[in-house]
């Protein structure tokens, strides 16, 4: 196969894509590259698929960095036994760990695999929550079809150029995008009184 | 010295509330596999199986012996002072009741038998509770349930056609039974062209099936009905042509003549059944069997009601007695095919061994038919299902040409016979 797809795939990618950099918070144990702008995505994907032999789009997903959801009594810090005499545990407060900053951004993640040489590479791209729009990869990877629809459905990311960008998992009447951290469920006809 | 009792794994199951034993010993099949005959249940099961077969034979004996009373009833009717046409009508009515009785009783019996056979093929037990012994009353209760069940006609259905379809399907089945031999000379009607009659009426039922598919207002039903039409009409041809050799050998369309033609033995021990005629007989038998399976819509040819594809095919939208009419029809045709196979190929009422000729012919007929019915059920629980186009290919490109060739072969055999080199 392609001899270049080995260790210097990352270097090739960094050289070819302007302003791309090694991500500061990588996916543990895997090479992770942060793109600077949505326009770079197709360039990087074409390079990965064409020259570097990464034919396998493994995953398309996103993270909403707005801040954690309300743990709403599901999670107790220490003592969760209601019969215990000890005072109930204080509710867990969201304290970002070191190196985590909550911000109104969506962090998109693509994972590409090179099955022949057993390599994996992650691309990521940060987008503002209210203008989440990236080019679709469906023209290059058929696997992007449903995964992008899923990200659209659950995060509200618009993939421009997707042939059939419609909801996939949630019902048609559901308002909003459930995996966004500020999602609030609006009561519908299936909710209990 | 006795070995310590083996720890059963994972142990008996008790009801949490009452503490009642639910499952005593959960045998792993590994244990059964090692020494099956050491298990008392296994031995008892084998005994029961022998008992059932003997019981069936006894019932056949009983029914057959009763048939002799028929003539006496006719004579008695004449003596009662009824006018001759009335006697004839009453006589036909009695015979009609008998035939319908056969079909209905066959429905009850065949469903139970199929459930038991499928269960034992699949290492289960099947119905075990209703009635006591091995769930013998299961189908009777099922029938009561079906009679009491709400008869639903979908809103999208064509009401009149929906009602008519099961009737159109079942009526030819009953009519077709008229000349069927239940023993030597034991038939409701003696017809010179019995074979033609049976084939003619048996092929009318497909109209009912297509009507059912069309009238249901359901796309799956429609597909099922269309498939049924294509399949049954196509398989009529090889089915008819495959028995042409039999008709050539026997020289008649009368079932009784065909039956009589197979009496006797070659070399004193090999019965002169048509299935034993070299090559021709076996090919004709296999083709007729295959075509009959296809005619009765059973696996591997059950595409009109393929449940994994078409839900239930043409009878998806039928319930209660309307639905059971279709099943009565299906099992009726299975029985019809079994009897035809027995008459055409297995010597009808003839005994397979010379020293067993004392046993009445209806026992032989019934046991041969039941054997063939078992083959039908066995097929169903062994084979996967063919696809529509494969089914048609198989019919038009294999069965039909080779059944023509078989007729040619039969001609050669008959020619040799006429020249004096034949088998007889």
């Amino acid at each position, binding site marked *: 196969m392609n001899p270049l797809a080995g260790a210097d795939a990352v270097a090739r990618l960094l050289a070819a894509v302007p302003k791309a950099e090694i991500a500061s918070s990588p996916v543990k144990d895997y090479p992770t590259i942060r793109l600077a702008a949505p326009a770079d995505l197709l360039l990087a994907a074409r390079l990965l698929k064409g020259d570097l032999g990464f034919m396998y789009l493994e995953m398309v997903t996103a993270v909403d960095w707005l801040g954690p959801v309300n743990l709403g009594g599901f999670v107790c810090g220490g003592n969760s036994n209601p019969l215990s005499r000890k005072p109930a545990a204080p509710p867990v407060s969201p304290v970002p760990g070191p190196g985590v900053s909550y911000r109104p951004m969506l962090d998109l993640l693509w994972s590409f695999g090179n099955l022949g040489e057993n390599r994996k590479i992650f691309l990521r791209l940060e987008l503002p929550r209210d203008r989440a729009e990236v080019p679709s990869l469906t023209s290059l990877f058929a696997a992007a079809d449903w995964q992008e629809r899923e990200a659209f459905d659950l995060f509200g990311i618009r993939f421009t150029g997707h042939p059939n960008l419609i909801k996939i998992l949630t019902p048609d009447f559901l308002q909003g995008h459930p995996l966004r951290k500020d999602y609030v469920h609006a009561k519908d006809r299936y909710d209990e009184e | 010295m006795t070995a310590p009792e083996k720890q059963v*794994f994972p142990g008996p199951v008790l009801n949490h509330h009452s503490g009642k034993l639910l499952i005593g010993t959960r045998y792993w099949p590994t244990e059964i596999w090692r020494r099956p005959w050491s298990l008392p249940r296994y031995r008892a099961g084998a005994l029961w199986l022998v008992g059932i077969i003997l019981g069936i034979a006894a019932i056949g004996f009983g029914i057959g012996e009763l048939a002799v009373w028929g003539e006496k009833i006719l004579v008695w009717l004449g003596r009662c002072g009824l006018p001759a046409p009335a006697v004839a009508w009453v006589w036909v009515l009695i015979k009609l009741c008998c035939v319908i009785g056969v079909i209905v009783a066959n429905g009850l019996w065949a469903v139970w038998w199929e459930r038991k056979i*499928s269960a034992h093929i699949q290492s289960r037990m099947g119905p075990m509770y209703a009635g006591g012994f091995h769930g013998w009353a299961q189908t009777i209760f099922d029938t009561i349930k079906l009679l009491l069940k709400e008869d639903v006609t979908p809103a999208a259905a064509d009401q009149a056609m929906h009602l008519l379809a099961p009737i159109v399907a079942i009526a030819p089945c009953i009519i077709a039974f008229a000349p069927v031999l239940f023993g030597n000379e034991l038939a409701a009607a003696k017809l010179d062209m019995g074979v033609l009659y049976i084939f003619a009426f048996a092929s009318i039922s497909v109209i009912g099936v297509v009507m059912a598919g069309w009238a249901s207002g359901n796309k799956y039903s429609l597909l099922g009905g269309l498939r049924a039409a294509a399949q049954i009409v196509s398989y009529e041809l090889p089915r008819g042509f495959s028995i042409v050799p039999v008709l050539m050998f026997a020289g008649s369309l009368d079932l009784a003549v065909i039956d009589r033609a197979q009496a006797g033995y070659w070399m004193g021990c090999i019965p002169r059944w048509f299935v034993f005629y070299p090559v021709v007989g076996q090919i004709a038998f296999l083709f007729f069997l295959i075509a009959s399976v296809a005619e009765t819509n059973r696996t591997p040819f059950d595409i009109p009601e393929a449940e994994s594809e078409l839900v239930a095919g043409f009878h998806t939208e039928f319930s209660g007695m309307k639905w059971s009419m279709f099943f009565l029809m299906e099992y009726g045709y299975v029985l019809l095919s079994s009897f035809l196979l027995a008459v055409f190929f297995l010597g009808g009422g003839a005994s397979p061994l010379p020293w067993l000729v004392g046993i009445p012919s209806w026992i032989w007929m019934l046991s041969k038919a039941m054997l063939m019915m078992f083959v039908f059920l066995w097929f169903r629980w062994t084979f996967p299902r063919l696809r529509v186009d494969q089914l048609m290919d198989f019919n038009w490109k294999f069965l039909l040409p080779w059944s023509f060739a078989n007729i040619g072969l039969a001609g050669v055999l008959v020619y040799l016979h006429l020249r004096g080199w034949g088998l007889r």
Partner: protein
Amino acid sequence: MKSEALIVTGPGLEMDTMFVNLGPQHPSTHGVLRLGLTLAGEVITKAFPDIGYLHRGTEKLMEARNYHQCVILTDRWDYCSAMPNNLAFCLSAEKLMAVAIPPRAQALRVIMCELNRIASHLIFLGTYGIDIGAFTPFLYAFREREMILDLYEKCCGARLTYNYIRLGGVAADIDSDWVAKCREFLEYFKPRLDEYDTLLSFNPIFLARTQEVGLIPKEAAVGWGLSGPNLRGSGVSYDVRKSEPYCGYEAYDFDVPVGTHGSCWDRYFCRVQEMRQSVRILEAALTKLPSGELMAKGLAKVPRPPAGEAYAHVEASRGDLGIYLVSDGGVAPYRIHVRAPCFINLAILQEILIGKKVADVIAVLGSFDIVLGEVDR
């Protein structure tokens, strides 16, 4: 791809099509999948898979639960083989926490996952037989699966949703009786596989129904992101157990069966052969089962992995199951994404069904071995 549709064109010859709604209530959609099919006669001209009827939002639910509570939710994805789900989640969290798993726990994880692979492939074998019209293999397959479930019951008390593989190890130990029983099962099971081959795999009707149907070329299989036996059926030898070994899979000797031309039968037979390989792995694992601890030392009761991101994937029964886990240092995972193999495998359906007959839809759909719990999550 070869199309079987005969399209006649010309004025006045427009073919009338029929829309058939296959599912969500249908005997052979394996759950609540809905397929909108446009038919010309019996040939499909357009297929639209519609999913989401079983969407429970586990990814969202997990954001408000601690890590131990999340393991319970993972059981509900692919309920036919829940052990690899537990494992994938635990591996991703353990990667973040950098926990060393004791060797006995590693071996137990392998044993349980391989048993579950057999159980899951048995379900596939049985249900695929039913899809094609053979009822009997289903009961045989379930008879064998029952024994595996008995083994699970004996070990961890559950038969379907195990919650057995926990963060840092496994929940319960096995004893010598269990090992003996497991060996007994394997000895019993090996000849049964040959029986399935005679009954179903090499049945001429079964071959005719599946061998030339649903062909997926190598490139299409990789492009659509298929994984597991569906990918290997097309001849791509990709198995996470080989490419990125976890739980000490590199220590076991096993082959990765691959198909030749990606037909339904290839996918089916890959699974049958995988069962044999699983038996091999199990025998080796039972032989060299190390003794020792079941849980890693020093784990907090309520784990708070350090902030960071981890991706762990395992070869689950139905393909490459990946968990992308983001932690912000809190008690609950900040974000979890499941790379559900069934979900991604299913997407190719809209392409390969075109030109097939209705009966083939079932054969193709069945050969993907989907579990809607995982498709919809």
